[in-house]
């Protein structure tokens, strides 16, 4: 049974190559689309997920990270005076105009925080350090955006919101889901860059760390009871809301998920077509097997084994191709993530996809009349 399955599958090498190409194409398409989806999702909320804060206090009605609205510093002090709060910091997010050395202007998202506070700081700093941001008019940007922002090295000077600034460090892999790169600065400077007329007592967010032994949800309820005109979210909630907004409210996520689904459908169609064609080529043999007394179950196992072999080999090749694509994406603007759980999920998806594709052939051999063997 196994031998027949393998021989029938590998006998026509051209057809088998077409089958494998179809499977690899479908799986790589799915990997890219799901990987992009994961990459986008992670990117949209990465500042929240790396903030080290338990709670985020936001202007009432602000549903996601990139549209922070300023509110009074008094809320910050109310937070600080709430029992169960170990630590709180003001945090700024706002768009600004970045003027390059050559005069070109780019939009950026300025993130203001208190260096050394441990809340809301940039991560993966590969050149310079967060502590360098205590210097006046200093910023840290990601190395992915060197070209876009027109900076090459530490010490390069630019203007943000008509204020002079100097690059003191670079991060690696902090992407922005919008086309505006993140620019990290100390809180006071971020106010200058984003709204020169604002007062220092404004903030877009307050990041809160709960005291040891205090559950974030418990503190969240307490803060909600004390604060007005603001919303209080756990970091996980705010991250989820931000991801949901970008992925589903804007339709960006649906677009990539639809493409992933298309990959799946194309894969099933290609594999079904090739397995069906192979089955039809060997239909008389299946009829002979039936005449010899083989049960339908026996024939199903032959077809399913062919499908599983196709899936295993297709999956292996797809993983190799995907590995190179994922590596290449790390240097691009949109990262493709492929965590082990996705690789494992795709393994089962490949098996299910190929077995589903074999169902058409299974249906065909079920209907074979063994009397066909006596017809010329």
């Amino acid at each position, binding site marked *: 049974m196994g031998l027949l399955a393998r021989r029938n599958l590998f006998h026509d090498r051209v057809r088998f190559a077409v089958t494998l190409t179809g499977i690899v194409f479908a799986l790589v398409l799915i990997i890219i689309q799901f990987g992009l989806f994961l990459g986008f999702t992670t990117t949209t909320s990465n500042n929240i997920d790396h903030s080290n804060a338990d709670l985020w206090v936001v202007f009432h009605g602000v549903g996601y990270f990139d549209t922070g609205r300023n509110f009074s510093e008094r809320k910050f002090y109310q937070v600080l005076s709430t029992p169960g709060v170990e630590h709180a910091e003001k945090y700024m997010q706002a768009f600004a105009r970045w003027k390059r050395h050559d005069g070109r202007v780019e939009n950026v998202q300025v993130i203001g925080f208190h260096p050394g506070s441990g809340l809301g700081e940039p991560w993966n700093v590969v050149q310079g350090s967060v502590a360098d941001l205590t210097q006046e008019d200093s910023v840290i940007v990601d190395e992915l955006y060197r070209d876009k922002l027109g900076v090459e090295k530490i010490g390069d000077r630019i203007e943000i919101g008509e204020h002079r600034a100097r690059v003191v460090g670079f991060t690696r892999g902090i992407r922005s889901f919008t086309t505006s790169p993140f620019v990290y600065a100390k809180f006071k400077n971020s106010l200058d860059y984003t709204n020169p007329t604002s007062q220092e007592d404004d903030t877009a967010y307050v990041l809160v760390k709960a005291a040891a032994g205090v559950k974030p949800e418990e503190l969240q309820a307490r803060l909600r009871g004390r604060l007005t005109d603001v919303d209080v979210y756990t970091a996980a909630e705010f991250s989820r809301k931000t991801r949901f907004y970008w992925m589903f409210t804007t339709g960006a996520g649906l677009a990539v998920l639809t493409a992933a689904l298309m990959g799946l459908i194309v894969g099933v169609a290609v594999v079904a077509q090739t397995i069906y064609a192979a089955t039809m080529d060997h239909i008389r043999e299946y009829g002979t097997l039936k005449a*010899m007394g083989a049960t339908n179950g026996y024939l199903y196992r032959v077809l399913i084994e062919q499908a599983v072999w196709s899936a295993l080999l297709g999956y292996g090749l797809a993983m190799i191709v995907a590995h190179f694509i994922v590596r290449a994406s790390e240097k691009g603007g949109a990262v493709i993530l492929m965590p082990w759980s996705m690789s494992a999920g795709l393994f089962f998806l490949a098996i299910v996809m190929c077995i589903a594709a074999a169902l058409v052939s299974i249906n065909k051999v079920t209907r074979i009349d063994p009397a066909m063997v006596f017809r010329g």
Partner: protein
Amino acid sequence: MPANGQLSGSKVIRAKGLSKIYREGATELRALQEVDLEVRTGELTLLMGPSGSGKTTLLSILGCILRASDGKLEVLGEDVSALPERELPRIRREAIGFVFQGFNLFPTLTAAENVALALDVRGLRGARAKQRAEELLDEVGLTQKAHSFPADLSGGQKQRVAIARALAGDPPILLADEPTAALDSTSGRTVIELLQRLARADGRAVVMVTHDPRVLSFGDRIIHLEDGRIVREEAGVTKAMEASSFLKVLPAEPAMSHEFSI
């Protein structure tokens, strides 16, 4: 050596009033009409008749591949007509081997693997299946071709592999559909001699549909069909010779050729 424990002369197939009607819309084709037949081990039975006479339909019904529209069929004493469809593969595995005009070998498998596949269908796998496949190929004189693919075999060799495959379940019944039609005279003779040996020496019941006049002298019984009915049965040459010498002793015996009664 009796096949599958059957004694020579045992009635392994009993058919009574077999009819087969094919319907297509309002059209009705009576392929078989009230055929009575008994098939015994140790005999090579030839089914002859013009095209459309119902030979292959009868063979398909006897082989439990096709259901009769009416009548009763017993195989090894089991009433097949009363069995549900899902039981028929078991009957085929346990009781019947098939040999086809076009060989129907699996082109991607070697001769030994083709035979081993028939053993696999019957649940015999691994080293035992390999050994048994080699034994069966030896029985048909193809030991040296065990590892050849069908494409590298002559027509006669392919048919002998097909016969080895048909013997995989050690069936008491072998059903052959024009097994010599695609073969030259030498290969055809080898194949019919092999089938005759399997009937007479091994004690199997061999039923063979044929148009080939060259094989007439090998049959123990020759059954003629026309329009879906058995119109005549006669003893083969060998049986007739045995009978004629018997007639010298018992001159009052009736003639061997007779119509309709089996």
